[in-house]
């Protein structure tokens, strides 16, 4: 039974192929069109998924869209009816899009599928899931659990903004929901907007900013913006927000509450906004921990699965692990809307077609989230030759040792191997790597390679078997979705109490300063030998040289650019930044040996996110 799952028309469209419950391919459209958060129908991703899974269009048994368009339209109408006469500006913008296009999503999907394969009767094959059911399915079905509590939280789907479900075997029962306009995701996005970052993409910047501030505004938020019940359920006071009836997230009343206007994105980030970030992060954690405590007491189930955009808040995830109410916590790596395509496909497999679910209790079904396209060595060489790259071919062992040695000498390496990752994180397939022991590395990577804000931290990839030696973490974190502190023995004493705001960046806090955030935390990725053997071998080789089983791992892109997909994308990014070395498959190339005429001005190539 082959199922094609699709998410599209909002942001982060994607396609996934699931065959008898096995995930064969999952690709985000943005990686192929090179438009960040591309929302268009994932025609390229579908083609790519079919190529990867070696299936023809005729072999697809069902196509499932990740949400129900009519329910979403009903919510939109109810919102305008509830807020009118306010909301004309928003109505003026949304109505033509819905009436002219979005309301006819079934027709649009069928039309797009028909262009791909005209002879297939797609109409009989098309199914629709619910947004939060798709998230819940993406969290539970690939997990290694027979039974789990599922918590999904995001901005909004149809009506639900959060849902609580129980997954058992091949069935999911959603028990309860929080409904729009009350949304933890939208609350966080409102603060993202207030802090001058882009909504739907800058939320992780706010999370990264939080440790620079003090949670001074928690009481104001609790008193005026959100009412949280004992069971963690919540409501927002909509008189401070504008997202229901306007084109912005917040209104003047919100700004007056905090005594400062919203930050302009070009202004430097002041201490005030760092405190704001710390405050909203604290409130979100408080709400989620209340929910989690309550469901643990209510259900007594020992496994927890998380999905939805809010589940990408890895600081929050780390706190859930830390309170220890659940024996196991599993977070879907593609927790945002792109993951909806996967969830929908799995829901169709188990809940519609009733294919029995096979569970491997030792390992999740995500295959390290390495579900995208891969390139053969011949293809890589041909692609690199076409773009004029000068490279050398090395055997596996020599390549690994040479790369590890270059990393230990302080070089920044573009690392392109095997299948591309599905979800927002680079996990060793399309990564930029560096030495975490270097004091200057964080600043250098942010400013010269990623072209992004200097306050933003980098994540460590560590060999699974060494994680508890270096971090206060004793479980797997293969998808970089848990934050844990650097262990005491690797910390350095600092005068941190005196430093404020971005000055905290100057302090060397540990033996691995490039991946230690100002509060000693790190967004850890554990690397397993079985899941990603080549990446494991590289870190092992680096460890032999440096006694440090860790590498800095950041996504292979610059600010505003989708993660690279092809060898040519990788070479362009390499030539447009200050990266020193590029390794693609078995090909290795250094910047100094490349034709200088191939250098690109990459800094202004992509719209900043």
């Amino acid at each position, binding site marked *: 039974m082959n199922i094609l799952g699709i998410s599209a028309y909002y942001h982060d469209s994607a396609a996934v192929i699931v065959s008898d419950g096995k995930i064969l391919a999952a690709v985000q459209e943005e990686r192929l069109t090179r438009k960040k958060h591309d929302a268009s129908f994932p025609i390229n991703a579908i083609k790519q998924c079919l190529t990867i899974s070696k299936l023809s269009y005729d072999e697809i048994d069902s196509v499932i869209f990740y949400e129900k*368009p009519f329910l979403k339209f009903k919510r939109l109408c109810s919102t305008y009816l509830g807020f*009118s006469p306010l909301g*004309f500006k928003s109505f003026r913008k949304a109505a033509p899009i819905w009436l002219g296009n979005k309301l006819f999503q079934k027709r649009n999907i069928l039309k797009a599928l028909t262009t791909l394969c005209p002879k297939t009767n797609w109409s009989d094959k098309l199914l629709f899931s619910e947004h939060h059911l798709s998230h819940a399915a993406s969290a539970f079905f690939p997990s290694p659990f027979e039974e789990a509590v599922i918590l999904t939280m995001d901005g909004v789907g149809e009506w639900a903004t959060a849902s609580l479900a129980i997954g058992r075997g091949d069935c999911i029962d959603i028990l309860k929901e*929080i409904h729009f306009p009350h949304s933890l995701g939208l609350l966080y996005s409102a603060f993202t907007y207030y802090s001058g970052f882009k909504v739907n993409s800058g939320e992780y910047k706010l999370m990264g900013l939080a440790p620079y501030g003090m949670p001074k505004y928690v009481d104001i938020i609790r008193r005026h913006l959100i009412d949280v019940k004992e069971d963690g359920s919540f409501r927002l006071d909509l008189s401070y927000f504008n997202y229901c009836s306007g084109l912005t997230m917040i209104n003047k009343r919100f700004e007056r509450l905090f005594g400062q206007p919203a930050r302009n994105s070009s202004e430097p980030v002041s201490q005030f906004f760092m405190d704001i970030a710390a405050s909203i992060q604290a409130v979100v954690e408080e709400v989620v921990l209340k929910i989690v405590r309550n469901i643990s007491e209510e259900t007594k189930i020992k496994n927890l699965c998380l999905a939805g955009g809010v589940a990408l808040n890895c600081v929050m995830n780390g706190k859930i692990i830390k309170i220890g109410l659940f024996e196991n916590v599993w977070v879907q790596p593609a927790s945002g809307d792109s993951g909806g395509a996967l969830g929908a496909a799995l829901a169709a497999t188990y809940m519609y077609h009733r294919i029995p679910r096979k569970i491997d209790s030792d390992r999740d079904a995500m295959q390290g989230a390495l579900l995208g396209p891969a390139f053969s060595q011949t293809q890589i060489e041909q692609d690199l030759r076409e773009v004029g790259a000068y490279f050398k071919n090395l055997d596996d062992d020599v390549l690994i040792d040479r790369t590890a040695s270059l990393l230990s000498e302080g070089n920044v390496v573009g690392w392109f191997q095997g299948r591309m990752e599905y979800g927002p994180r680079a996990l060793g397939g399309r990564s930029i790597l560096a030495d975490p022991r270097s004091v200057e590395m964080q600043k250098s990577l942010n400013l010269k390679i990623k072209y992004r804000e200097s306050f933003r931290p980098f994540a460590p990839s560590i060999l699974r078997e060494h994680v508890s030696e270096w971090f206060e973490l004793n479980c797997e974190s293969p998808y970089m979705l848990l934050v844990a502190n650097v262990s005491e023995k690797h910390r350095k004493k600092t005068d941190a109490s005196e430093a404020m705001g971005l000055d905290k960046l100057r302090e060397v806090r540990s033996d691995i300063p490039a991946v230690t955030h100002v509060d000693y935390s790190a967004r850890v990725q554990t690397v397993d030998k079985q899941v990603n053997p080549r990446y494991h071998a590289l870190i092992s080789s680096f460890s032999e040289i440096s006694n440090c089983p860790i590498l800095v791992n950041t996504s292979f892109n610059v600010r505003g650019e989708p993660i690279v997909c092809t060898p040519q994308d990788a070479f362009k990014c390499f030539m447009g930044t200050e990266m020193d070395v590029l390794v693609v498959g078995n090909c290795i190339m250094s910047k100094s040996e490349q034709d200088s005429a191939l250098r690109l001005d990459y800094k202004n190539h992509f719209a900043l996110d």
Partner: protein
Amino acid sequence: MCFLRRFVSELLFFALFFLVLFPFAIIRRLFGKKYVSKKFDKTLPSYWVIKENNWNSKDFFNKQN
């Protein structure tokens, strides 16, 4: 021509919102219809809304609503 088209379209959406949607909403709201909750409700013990799952029927996945 382009200006005229834009003007007519603005007028249409204005009329749709203020002459159709708004009066309809006002009347429904006067008769007690609550479209969205906008404020806290201290009297409620919980804000969770119980979900009735209906995906046991195959129909659930076939419908857009």
